[in-house]
């Protein structure tokens, strides 16, 4: 197919590189440098999509991000929903489909890579139009570190859509090229093309999305991140984001072939594409004259320019006349004809003399003025001001360290834009501490200057309100003037309500062209001043950002750090299954071939109770507490007394929050008069260290106490079971392991006979009720220790066990697990641990809360054991407990719930721990547990079910 709307020469496309693409199955050709929209126009295609509510044909209305109607679904090389044809760079093999309003997600995984990168600078400049380029170069010449971002594939901004004579260089392109070349050559300058600053945040933080390989299509290298989030931190921010042209609303203003006048210039100059062959122009300001004149000069038939103003600019009118363009002042478009393409426009005088008329054309260009792109400024909470001369909101206050320049600040002529750019560049670099930079000569051009003030016109007034209104305000949401009036008629006054009632501004384009018009129409309808209306909030992102780009590389194995111990690879090699505990991977159980979890756990439990077993306990939190006041400090943090613990001894301790609820538990060992080592649960290690630091630093800074995490310095191996002493003895030649010499709840340092002698700290503690030792070595030796223990224990059938077996063993002994048997509403007393709550200490954290009435209710839930009537039953954890044998109608009174439940090898039956109202008073009673459709009778027992007397722990 021939590109019959492409001019033979001109534009910035590479005519040597033809690219194949298709829309809705129709194959076409374009060039490198095209957007999908420019390539479609070159092929004479205006209609791209259909609208969401009425299914009306919709075409290409703009040449940039402000386009509200040319929405496509990319199908190949990879499905991507709702892309604007005006911003999709063309590549070979692009297959697109016009969207009927909703996009479609791929049903296969996205193979692309996404990443993020931080960059710091003195000055960030957003927008590489003339204002931004001058600002960036001025700052760069001062020696400042500069980042320049622009969302297009080449710098130049609005200059890309113009062909004025520029300075001595001839063309704007040459000037842009020079500036860019100098920027690129300046050290400390980073120019980011195809990069949209989509969010502006506090303290000079700007987020930008760089599209790095999209324009390469299927040829994109796999290992290069397709898109990158730049996290820019700048001392000074210069916003030079330009302005978006605004349409005027009239009947049937949505037909394909109706386009913004500035966009037509862009298609002409940047892409060498004519939007049509017979073009009518409708404007409220001078800028569209240029489009009319330039198109006529290219040989296009421009029969008429309608200027809504009663008095048009003389000079421009004369220029038009010279090119055969009739200017009709005081006229407006009142309607259009055509289906997939405009065929005629209806025109009429706005006031005064003249007759309605109809003119044939294939393209209608519209200009209703310019909206400064104030999104980022507004995101920074900069107040906006209504500028009546522009009919638009502009920055209305100064923000520290932020400047808005060029058309973004409301300047529409090149001279002001570049002057402001230069001033901002200088001010920014000075504010960042750089001396006066060498000035950048400001370019001049022969662009037509505005002669007459613009007229602000939101919509072409219409007599009677039409039944089926086609005066579209928001093309993407199919929202019309009638919808706006219906909203005001419904009693709505605020633009926020009207936005939500009509959905104007909530689509993919976020109201870039419609928002201002809606505000204007509302003001007219309500008879209020626009200046009194607050525009709806500009929110990030400025243009839409793929989810995957924001997720970046934090996916899969990198989604959240996997924390592992020194013995991890051993567990993996042995086929352990793992449990996630916080970020840690902990061995859950070690199935042997043919075993399921229940089998494996029974076997592991049996080994621990009958012979010897070991587990990897390295994940326990460990905190070194040093300093003269350590005992005093720990006395405040634990419910029990720690200051009277003897050096060489160990004590179990419980910590509560100020509300008196248990938050953690663990052992405290006294290493020296002024030194303790405390352990925390795996999941709470970081939290407890912070908790301790908070009290220490904020409440008791006078205490001479220093906290250091040593969690990962140590590898920790509980060695459990009647034969643990033998195994330890065989590895610890210098240690007297006898009960007399090394009693329960004490610790010893020794050197183990492991790879040439490994220093170890051995603690006699037991979380299983068995004779047990906890062996700690420098983590470098963890693996060696483990292997040595496996070897030394071989004669006894030493068995590695995981967290599940640990849970069973401790539950048989009634030891609670914080977070499993507690849920933030349980006190030490509820756990039956009054013994661990000091009566002597005047105070400790949580103590005062115990005196509250709720803490002294007789029916508090207390930790007890439950034995199902049928020993084979293992209650589900989380089952609720009730009083009656039959399930009554809901609501059913619940007495508590099962917190832990297992099949016990030692007890040869199922058992559970539970928290039950007045539980300890109910010991011996029968209660009931609804399980699926059954109600299971259970006997309430003491929470300690195994070896109540504790005879086993000494071996």
């Amino acid at each position: 197919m021939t590109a019959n709307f492409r001019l033979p020469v001109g534009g910035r496309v590479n005519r040597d590189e033809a690219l194949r693409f298709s829309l809705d199955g129709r194959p076409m050709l374009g060039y490198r440098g095209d957007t999908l929209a420019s390539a479609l126009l070159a092929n004479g295609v205006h209609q791209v999509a259909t609208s969401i509510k009425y299914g009306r044909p919709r075409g290409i209305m703009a040449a940039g991000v402000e386009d509200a109607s040319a929405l496509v679904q990319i199908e190949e090389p990879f499905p991507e929903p709702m892309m604007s044809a005006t911003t999709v760079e063309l590549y070979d093999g692009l297959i697109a489909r016009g969207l009927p309003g909703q996009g479609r997600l791929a049903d296969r995984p996205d193979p692309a890579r996404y990443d993020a990168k931080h960059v710091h600078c003195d000055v960030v400049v957003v927008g590489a139009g003339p204002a931004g380029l001058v600002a960036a170069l001025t700052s760069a010449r001062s020696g400042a570190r500069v980042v320049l971002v622009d969302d297009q594939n080449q710098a130049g901004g609005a200059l890309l859509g113009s062909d004025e004579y520029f300075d001595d260089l001839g063309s704007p392109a040459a000037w842009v090229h020079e500036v860019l070349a100098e920027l690129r050559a300046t050290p400390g300058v980073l120019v980011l093309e195809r990069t949209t600053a989509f969010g502006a945040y506090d303290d000079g933080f700007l987020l930008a999305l760089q599209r790095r390989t999209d324009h390469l299509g299927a040829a994109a290298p796999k290992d290069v991140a397709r898109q990158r989030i730049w996290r820019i931190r700048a001392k000074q921010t210069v916003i030079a984001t330009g302005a978006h042209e605004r349409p005027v609303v009239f009947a049937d203003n949505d037909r394909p072939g109706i386009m913004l006048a500035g966009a037509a210039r862009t298609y002409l100059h940047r892409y060498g594409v004519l939007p049509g062959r017979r073009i009518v122009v409708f404007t409220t300001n001078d800028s569209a004259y240029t489009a009319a004149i330039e198109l006529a000069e290219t040989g296009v038939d421009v029969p008429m320019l309608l200027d809504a103003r009663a008095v048009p600019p003389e000079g421009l009118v004369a220029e038009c006349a010279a090119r055969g363009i009739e200017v009709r002042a005081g006229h407006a478009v009142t309607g259009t004809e055509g289906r997939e393409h405009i065929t005629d426009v209806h025109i009429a005088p706005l006031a005064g003399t003249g007759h309605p008329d109809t003119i044939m054309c294939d393209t209608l260009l519209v200009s209703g003025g310019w909206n400064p792109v104030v999104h980022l400024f507004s995101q920074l909470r900069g107040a906006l001001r209504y500028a009546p001369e522009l009919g638009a909101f502009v920055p209305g206050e100064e923000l520290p360290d932020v400047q808005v320049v060029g058309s973004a600040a409301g300047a529409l002529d090149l001279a002001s834009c570049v002057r402001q750019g230069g001033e901002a560049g200088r001010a920014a670099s000075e504010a960042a501490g750089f001396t006066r930079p060498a000035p950048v000569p400001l370019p001049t051009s022969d662009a037509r200057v505005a002669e007459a003030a613009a007229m602000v016109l939101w919509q072409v007034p219409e007599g009677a309100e039409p039944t089926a209104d086609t005066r579209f305000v928001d093309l993407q949401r199919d929202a019309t003037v009638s919808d706006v009036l219906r909203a005001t008629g419904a009693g709505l006054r605020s633009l926020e309500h009207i936005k939500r009632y009509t959905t104007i501004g909530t689509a993919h384009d976020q109201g870039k062209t419609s928002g201002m018009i809606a505000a204007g129409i509302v003001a007219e309808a309500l008879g209020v001043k626009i200046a009194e209306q607050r525009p709806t909030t500009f929110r990030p992102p400025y243009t839409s950002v793929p989810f995957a780009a924001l997720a970046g590389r934090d996916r899969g194995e990198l989604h959240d750090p996997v924390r592992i111990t020194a013995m991890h690879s051993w567990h993996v090699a042995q086929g352990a299954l793992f449990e996630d505990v916080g970020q840690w991977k902990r061995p859950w159980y070690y199935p042997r071939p043919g075993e399921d979890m229940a089998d494996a756990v029974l076997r592991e439990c049996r080994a621990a109770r009958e012979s010897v077993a070991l587990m990897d306990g390295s994940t326990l939190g460990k905190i070194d507490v040093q300093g003269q006041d350590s005992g005093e400090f720990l006395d405040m943090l634990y419910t029990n007394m720690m200051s009277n613990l003897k050096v060489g001894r160990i004590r179990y301790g419980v910590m509560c929050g100020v509300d008196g609820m248990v938050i953690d538990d663990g052992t405290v060992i006294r290493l020296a008069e002024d030194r303790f080592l405390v352990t925390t649960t795996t999941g709470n290690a970081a939290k407890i260290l912070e908790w301790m630091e908070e009290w220490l630093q904020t409440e008791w800074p006078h205490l001479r106490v220093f906290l250091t995490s040593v969690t990962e310095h140590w590898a920790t191996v509980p060695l459990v079971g009647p034969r643990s002493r033998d195994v330890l003895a065989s590895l610890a030649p210098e240690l007297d392991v006898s009960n007399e010499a090394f009693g329960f709840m004490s610790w010893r340092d020794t050197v183990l006979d492991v790879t040439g002698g490994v220093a170890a700290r051995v603690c006699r503690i037991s979380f299983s009720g068995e004779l047990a030792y906890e062996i700690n070595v420098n983590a470098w030796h963890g693996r060696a220790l483990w292997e040595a223990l496996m070897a030394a224990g071989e004669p006894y059938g030493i068995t590695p066990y995981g967290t599940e077996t640990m849970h069973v063993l401790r539950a048989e002994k009634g030891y609670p697990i914080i977070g499993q048997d507690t849920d933030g509403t349980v006190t030490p007393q509820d756990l039956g641990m009054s013994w661990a709550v000091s009566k002597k200490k005047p105070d400790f954290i949580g103590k005062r809360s115990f005196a509250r009435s709720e803490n002294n209710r007789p029916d508090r839930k207390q930790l007890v054991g439950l034995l199902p009537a049928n020993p084979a039953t293992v209650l589900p954890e989380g089952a609720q407990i009730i009083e009656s044998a039959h399930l009554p109608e809901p609501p059913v009174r619940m007495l508590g719930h099962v917190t832990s439940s297992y099949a016990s090898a030692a007890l040869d039956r199922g058992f559970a721990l539970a928290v039950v109202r007045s539980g300890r008073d109910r010991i011996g009673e029968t209660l009931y547990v609804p399980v699926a459709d059954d109600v299971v009778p259970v006997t309430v027992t003491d929470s300690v079910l195994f070896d109540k007397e504790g005879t086993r722990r000494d071996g």
Partner: protein
Amino acid sequence: MTAETTSGSSPLGAWTARLAELAPAVRVTERPFLTQLTLRVRDAQAQAAIGPALGVELPSTPCSFTRGTGPHGELEVLWLGPDEYLVLARPGVQQSLEDAIRAALGDAAGAVVDVSAQRTTLALSGPRVRDVLAHGCAIDLHPSAAPTGTCVQTLLAQAGIVLLVSDAGRDEFTLLVRSSFASYLAAWLIDASVEYRMVPA
């Protein structure tokens, strides 16, 4: 029997080969088994007394480290907090170094803790090292902002790290990471370097 402290398996022992593949864009090597002691001391006099015992003054400005040679050989002393330092020394001198510091500390409030295995140490260098770090580290590592001698505790991606600018001019950094996070960090570094490996600097 005496204990051996200079051998064992280091957290990244199994990653050596994969990390080596990142060269020449980025050179990453583990420096395992270094002696690392946390030193806590508030009192200015005590701080001053420790310098001579180490052969190097404690860093007096936040976010910096000092380097020197003393009775225990070459040392680096990292500022980790207003009263917190990390002493980095050659493998195997934990005990003698601790003894020396304790002696210098005297009765002053303070603490010394052997944390040698708490973190492992990586030496990073190469022309793209700043780029790779910038993918996950929000600190400005430009030589003007982070000169030689800088030492920051911060995040690299989702791992806490201590980062030393060992030689800004030669693009040399030292990175300490907690042992349990080391393999995450290694995987992250390898993944972050993908592009730089393809396009040699």
